Structures are given as C-alpha cells and as structure tokens.
C-alpha cells in the first residue's frame, strides 16, 4: 500500500482488523460485517461443495484417492462422535463435520499473509478494508457457539422433557435435597452461561491472537533488510506452529460441540 504514507503501527494493525461493514438499519447492532459473512459463506460453499462433489460420485467399491481422503475425514469425525455421543448420530455427526470443516477452513484463512489478501481485496474487489479471517470476528464464533448452545437446549427439552430438564437443573449435581436446589440451580446457571462463552471466546482468542502476532511480524518485516529476514523467518516459524493451532482449535470446537450435544442427550 504505497499510497499510504507514514503508516503507524496502530493504524496498520487497526486497518487489518477492521471489518468491512454495511449498515442495515439505525443503531450499532444493525451493522453487518459483510467481509466476515461473505468469506465464511464462500469458504463453506467451497468446502461443502467439494465434499458434495466427491460424495455424489462415491462408490461402495474400491474408492479413488479423493474419495478415500473424504472417507478418512468422515471416519475421523464419526469416530470422535461415536466415542462421546451414544445414540442416534444422524444429526450429531453431520453437525460435527460441518463445524470441523467450516471452522478449519475459516481458521486456515490466517495462513494467507494479510497484505497479500489485502492486495486482492483492494485491487480486485475494490474494498479498502476487508478482514479475511472470519473466525477472528467474534460474531462468527458466537454465532457458532450460540447455535450449538441453542441445539443443546432444544435437545435437552426434546430428550428429557421440560420436567426432566427442570429436575436436572435443580437436582444436579449435588442431589435433590430442597436446601440444595438453589445451589444446584446457580451451579447449572453458571455452567450454561459459561459453555457458549468459553466455546466462542477460546476460538476467537486463539485466532485473533495468532493474527496479531503475524501482523507484528509483518511490521517488523517492513523495517529494512534485517527486519525482513528475521521477520520472514519468524513468520514462517509462527505459520508452521499456527498449522497446529488452526487444526487444534477446529478440533476442540468440534469436540466441545459433540460433548455439549452428548450432555443434552444424557440424563442423570
């Protein structure tokens, strides 16, 4: 971005972490982060489109390499679900697959150097600000976490019934003594509030922090030859380490999803 003279580090980081927004109505709530939504949707379409394309030609006979890869993925997800969730997996397994693939792809956007992505969004899409990593937007992680949370509540009621669930809220984990009921309820309340919070913020925090570290390194890389060299080497190291974080966070997000769904299906 040669046009911008005298860019301070705050401006640089701020620029890359600002969402491209569209106001749908008055009020701060109605600002839509169009970059987050479009990037996420595009990644989802690519990811699930690929899976759909492979699955449509799936054969029960000898699979080709593409199908074997997808089967490996399915088997991995289904194996994780099978280990935790005991019951009809026809919803939970696809849910876990969706979460894993989508979050992994969104996280993986972190690997594209921000300034390279900006080059594309600036000159091809003609957007001055465009945040390329959807999971570094807290809206995405909360959307996923709260959706899972909503499904969890829905299945709590569906499996245990209103009465059963209420009983569980007041009588676990300490027992059904009348004196312990407020304590039980408080305990469960904290648990139900902390679940989506930790679910969403863990992913958000990891990816956001990863992005900031990349940006700090890129800034160093802009300070001359030595800076470029060390910044580049460190960024490579961080990128390699980040492969682990990207995969691990997607995995953790999927596992928590499965665990929460499994807790909704198991009565105490």
């Amino acid at each position, binding site marked *: 971005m040669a046009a911008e003279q005298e860019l301070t580090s705050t401006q640089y980081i701020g620029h890359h972490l600002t*969402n491209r927004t569209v106001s*749908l109505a008055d009020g*701060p*709530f*109605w*600002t*839509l*982060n169009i970059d*987050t*939504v479009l990037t*996420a*949707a595009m990644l*989802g379409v690519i990811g*699930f489109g690929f*899976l*759909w394309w*492979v*699955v*449509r030609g*799936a*054969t*029960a*006979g000898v*699979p080709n390499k593409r*199908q074997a890869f*997808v*089967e490996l993925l*399915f*088997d991995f997800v*289904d194996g994780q679900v099978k280990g935790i969730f005991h019951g009809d997996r*026809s*919803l939970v*397994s*696809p*849910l876990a*697959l*969706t979460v894993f693939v*989508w979050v992994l792809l969104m996280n993986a956007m972190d690997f594209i150097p921000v300034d390279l992505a900006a080059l594309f969004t600036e000159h091809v899409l003609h957007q001055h600000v465009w945040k390329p990593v*959807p999971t570094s*937007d*807290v*809206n*995405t992680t*909360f*959307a*996923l976490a*709260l*959706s899972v949370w909503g499904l969890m509540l829905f299945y709590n009621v569906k499996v245990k019934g209103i009465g059963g669930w209420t009983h569980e809220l007041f009588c676990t984990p300490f027992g059904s003594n009348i004196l312990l009921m407020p304590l039980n309820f408080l305990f469960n309340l904290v648990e139900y509030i902390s679940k989506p919070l930790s679910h969403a913020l863990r992913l958000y925090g990891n990816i956001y922090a990863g992005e900031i570290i990349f940006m700090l390194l890129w800034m160093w890389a802009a300070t001359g030859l030595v800076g470029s060299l060390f910044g580049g080497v460190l960024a490579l190291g961080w990128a390699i380490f980040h492969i682990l974080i990207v995969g691990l966070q997607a995995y953790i997000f999927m596992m928590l999803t499965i665990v929460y769904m499994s807790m909704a299906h198991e009565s105490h």
Partner: protein
Amino acid sequence: MNLTVTMIAQAITFFVFIFFCKKFVWPPLVKAIESRQKEIADGLAAAERGKQELQQAAKRTEEIMLEARQRATELLTQADKRAAEIVEEAKTVAKNEGERLIAGAKAEINQEVLSAKETLRAQVATLAVAGAEKILRREVDAKTHADLLRAVQAEL
C-alpha cells in the same frame, strides 16, 4: 469487537450448511462406506465358509479314499479266497474224474478179462473137445457123451 447482526447472518449460514451436510453430504458417503463394510464382511464370511467347505471336502475325500482302499483289500481277499476255492474245486473235480476214469478202466479191464476168459474157456473147451474127439473118435460117441462134454466145458 461488538456483537451485531453479523452473528445472526453467520448463524443462518451455519444452519444452512448443517442442513446441507445432513441432507446431501453425510448420508451418501456413509451409505457407501456401510455397504462396503457389509460387502467386506460378507466376503470374509464367504471365504470362511469356503475354507470350511474345503476342509469338509478334504475330510470326505479322505474317508472315500479309505473306504475305497478297504473295499479293494476286501475284494483282493475275496478274489484270493475264490481263486483258492476254484483251484480246490478243480482239484476235487479232477481227482473225482480221475477216479471215475480209473474205475471205468478197471471195469473195462475186468470186462475184457472176463470176456477173454469166456473166449478162452470156449476155445479150451472146443480144443479139449476136439482133442478128446480125436482121441475118442472112434470110441466115444459124441451124441452119447454130449452131457458129459458139456459138463466138462462148464467146468473150464
């Protein structure tokens, strides 16, 4: 970082992807995997069955071979016995036949002897009579001494 309508949009996108995954992506591949698993399981079971059948067939072959061997031995024994019997029978028959022939020959010889004796006797009688006749030509009347002569003839 503030929560906005973006969250709702993302949630909707999420549910669309969940629906798509549950409806179009998950079932076909799982079906393919499961039918392959079934095929493999069937194949293994068939192989196991085939192996068992092969074992049974080998066992049956063994039994049949054993039986055939036993039968052959039995037949050989029977044949030996039969041959011995035939030889024995032939021997008996031959001995009987020989004895019969000998008996026949003996009888014939006796017959011959008897008839020779008869002839001899007749000839001796004739000779004796002729001799006597010559001696007694004149003194013996054949007619008168016929009885005597016949008695002599019979004694010879």
